[in-house]
């Protein structure tokens, strides 16, 4: 199977990864998809919800938490992906677990790429709450694009990774999609090499 090396690390390229989307035309089910992003240096980053109340002081947060609402938000970087989602960052593990992704590679300005990274750094320091509906992985991925001035509006319709993907594809001409098993390899210097095997 052909392996494509994506243009990372760079200074003006970022990416959206839709997990569970097997091809650009595939529409995965709402509970079969997840959104991550790729920073300009090729590093993967994504927002997840974990057990525990996301914000204190709200009455009944425990019961909401048991239905995917007001959970504790957490940002995964490469080391955290390796222990919680190795099949999202390692190609061999992606194949072993049959996890395919679609990567949307977007060319932006260097300033936008830096702002995109800045958003994720700030979110990592203060991740806040996670709600399965409306304040989830794709909401934060979308916010990162808005913060960087890459898009101006939120996701049309439900906040799902695939809806964000469709919004970005229709908003830009400088995008390329790659689908298959995705792998990130740390480079000796800074950054990551990103490859997709279709």
């Amino acid at each position, binding site marked *: 199977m052909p392996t494509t090396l994506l243009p990372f690390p760079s200074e003006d390229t970022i990416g959206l990864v839709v997990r569970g989307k097997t091809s650009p035309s595939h529409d995965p089910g709402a*509970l079969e998809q997840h959104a991550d992003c790729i920073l300009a240096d090729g590093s993967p980053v994504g927002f997840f919800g974990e057990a525990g109340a996301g914000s204190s002081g709200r009455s009944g947060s425990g019961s909401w938490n048991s*239905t995917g609402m007001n959970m504790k938000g957490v940002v995964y970087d490469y080391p955290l992906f*390796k222990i919680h989602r*190795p099949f999202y960052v390692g190609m061999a593990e992606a194949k072993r677990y049959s996890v395919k992704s679609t990567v949307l590679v977007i060319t932006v300005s260097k300033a936008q790429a830096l702002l995109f990274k800045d958003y994720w750094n700030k979110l990592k320091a203060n991740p806040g709450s996670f709600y399965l509906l409306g304040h989830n992985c794709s909401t934060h991925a979308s916010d990162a694009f808005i913060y960087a001035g890459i898009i101006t509006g939120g996701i049309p319709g439900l906040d799902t990774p695939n809806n964000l993907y469709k919004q970005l594809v229709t908003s830009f001409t400088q995008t390329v999609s790659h689908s298959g098993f995705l792998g990130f390899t740390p480079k000796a210097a800074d950054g990551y090499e990103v490859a997709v095997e279709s």
Partner: protein
Amino acid sequence: MFGNPFQAKVVLRFILLLTTALLVGEHTMSQSRETALNLKWEWPGDRTPDYRILVRVDRLTRPDQGLFGWKKSPSLASALPDPIELTGTVIAGQQDWLGKTITLSLPKLELASAGEGDRVAMGVLIQNVCICIAKAPDPLPGDAERWLASWRCNAS
């Protein structure tokens, strides 16, 4: 509310029965919570286990996936691909765990061919996180403790 005293008596009996059932159920659950050691599954990353245990697999069940399967969402940190719930008994390794019941939810893929009645080796971190698992050979080549010490936690 109840015009008929018989109706009131029936409702009262029902409430008493329900309360008793709930209290007994809660007591049983708290007892099982006390004895079971709940391990959490994570992949090793670059970590190596702090200790190894040999566990007899007593029961394998499918975990509850929540209403409409919401717990399966890959955006939830706790969601595991094709998860299975393992309940077992520690039979060798960590001395103060011997005889204890453990529970572990893990991807079925990691369990490979191990089934109920089989013995599995687990590599565990001090935070009660299991990072590797493998079916033990049957019979074990020699002493269980010695075999465990030589077992390679082939963490992916």
